[in-house]
């Protein structure tokens, strides 16, 4: 029972058909995935015979055709523009969240989401009866949750020149979502946030944001902090200590609410 208003062939056929499935291999990057989607789409081979796979995925099948794609910013941008103008900006935000995810199997789900988006409009996100859309919504939730957690769990240190510096180690590539929040919040500050795993640094100077990829190992680095930094750290630790109701101590709940992976760079748990 498939309802009438969606073309059923947009989802990949599970069973062998007259044509072999063509798998587009792409880089694990937003441009890479979008380029593969562009290539698959413009090949006119048929959506249901196409499949998009990130090249670090290794489940190969001898009956499939494999096509390598080369990331191309132009192709990626053209898809982004069409989504923004023909579907909606909100829908693009959903696609963007999925692109930034660390889920290795997301490429094909994003492909299906975009096809459905062009077919039924922004309401594609409510087609939860389809597995690809269910997965997409799950991915979006995961990215949003991590983003929202880090809004609270990022800790800045004041360096000698009053720059606020923070490190974090997110699973998803959310630095481009996190930095605008702080740029807006601290319009008069210089901010630097480093994604330790990806070695991406985002800086914001008086509200203007820029990114750079470096080869600095932020795990090791210690930067000289300002004179009051130690006292304030001590005060914050003291605050965390004093606010606990000892009669109700519940470290399990604390760990559930703030898993250990978030505590790596937080002042109070160092």
């Amino acid at each position, binding site marked *: *029972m*498939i*309802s009438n*208003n*969606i073309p059923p062939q947009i989802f990949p056929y599970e069973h062998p058909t007259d044509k072999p499935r063509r798998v587009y291999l792409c880089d694990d990057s937003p441009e890479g995935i979008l380029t593969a989607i562009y290539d698959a789409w413009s090949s006119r081979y048929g959506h249901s015979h196409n499949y998009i796979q990130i090249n670090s995925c290794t489940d190969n099948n001898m009956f499939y055709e494999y096509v390598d794609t080369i990331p191309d910013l132009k192709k990626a941008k053209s898809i982004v523009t069409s989504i923004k103008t023909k579907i909606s900006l909100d829908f693009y935000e959903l696609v963007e969240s999925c692109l930034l995810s660390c889920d290795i199997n997301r490429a094909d789900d994003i492909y299906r989401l975009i096809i459905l988006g062009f077919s*039924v409009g922004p*309401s594609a996100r*409510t*087609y*939860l*009866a389809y597995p690809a859309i*269910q997965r997409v919504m799950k991915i979006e939730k995961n990215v949003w949750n991590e983003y*929202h957690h880090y*809004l*609270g*769990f*990022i*800790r*800045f*240190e*004041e360096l000698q020149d*009053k720059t*606020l510096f*923070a490190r974090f180690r997110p699973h998803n590539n959310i630095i481009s979502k996190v930095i605008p*929040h*702080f740029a*807006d*919040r*601290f*319009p*008069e*500050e210089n901010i630097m946030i480093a994604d330790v795993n990806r070695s991406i640094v985002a800086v914001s100077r008086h*509200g203007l944001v820029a990114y750079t990829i470096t080869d600095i190992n932020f795990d090791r680095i210690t930067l000289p902090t300002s004179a*009051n930094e130690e*006292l*304030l750290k*001590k*005060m*914050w630790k*003291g*605050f*965390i*200590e*004093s*606010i*606990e*109701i*000892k*009669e*109700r*101590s*519940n*470290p*399990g*709940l*604390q760990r559930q*609410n*703030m898993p250990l992976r978030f505590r790596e760079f*937080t002042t*109070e748990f160092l």
Partner: protein
Amino acid sequence: MNNGQSGGIFIVTENTMDKLNILTAAAKYDVACTSSGVERTGGSSGIGSTISPGVCHSFSGDGRCISLLKVLYTNECIFDCKYCINRRSNDVRRTSFTPEELAELTISFYRRNYIEGLFLSSGITRSPNTTMEQIYQVLLLLRYTYNFHGYIHVKAIPGADDELITRTGWLADRMSVNMELPTAESLNKLAPHKNRANILTPMRRIQTLRDSDREFHGELLTDSATLTTASDNLPISHNNKSTEAVSCKSKFCKPAVMKAGTRRFVPAGQSTQFIIGASDDTDYQIIKVSEALYERFDLKRVFYSAFVNVNLDSELPDTSKGSEMLREHRLYQADWLLRYYQFKADEILSPEYPSLNTLVDPKCSYALNHLEMFPVEITTASYHTLLRVPGIGVTSARRITSVRKHSAGLLTFNDLKKIGVVLKRAQYFITCGGKSLVPIRITQSFILANMLGLKDNLPKGLTKEQTYEQLSLFDVSDIVENRIEQISC
């Protein structure tokens, strides 16, 4: 503009640290620590912004969220409330911040992203007015000298002048007056210096001013207008045309985005708190009062705090064996039913059954007592009806109504699970496409026994023996007898 260090002199010192520790410990029994309800962008100058869901910045050892710098301005107090650690008759170290010191500390913490803002409460020094005045000073410094646009939650001090409360309200995001105890008798007994009128007057005052401010900004709409604007935020019932399923109290809608520097009167609304277990008040009394506060005073939240006998006062219940955490938990669940699930207090409890069931949550308990309403057919039931099913929450009910618009025929139990329906509870009460998941006898004892058979369904704090013990005493038999009586009448 200054970056936190006003005039080059840093006034936060080791001495401040000492004060911070004392005044934090004195404020910790106030449970509210939310930073939600206002969406405000940062300006081109100054510091700070807020986002409407709020942000948790850390979690303390008891598992509670730390969002705001929750401190007392001073722990000196002229009142002698029996339950309070800062009461006059207690021999504890007394201290107090200066407005400059506290403002500086707040900004220093805020810049490092330790906190989302300030939660300022206070003991009553000299008079309510003096205290309110001091709180106002801190807010004035933060908002005007530091140009701070972050979240501020303050207590309205009962008994303070209207004028002072009004001025403070224009600078704060949320204000609260703690009810502490639901009935006037228990208030008299435990907090002899407080009275009902003193608590409700500022609450009403804040509500009135807030309403007129919202009306001025075109937000306080008539009922019919609310329906159309609310439709973006709240799901519309599918088949059922009853207005109660559609009606949206404007307080649940997403707040409008404010710009930094705009002054609105208490934009995040009011909250209050009850102490649970210090007096003999029943759950029914408590949620009846909560309901009245939500409906008549337009409160955003009521918080419940399980009583800890910090003063070891012999007139108060002994909590050394553990406080009533489960009761607190059940009250929060009932509170959610009032706020998000369109329940009425009288549907949850009644004077004959004034206590919440400890074994199952209030919604399950309601469903077990209203089996005539079930099973509910997922593909056709109204949003309102879906909300009554245990295991279906606001999010999953919304998803169900939006999915079935285009693919009702496709919905299976497996999809429901992926949508977020908790089938282990919902399975007894729903059919999907006319089928039920498992063969079910719709009787209370069958469902209850199965629900409790699940290991993870045992509430925390109940051991196995307790459960079985209570199971035998459990009021199912009473209710069944009651129903039989009703039928025979």
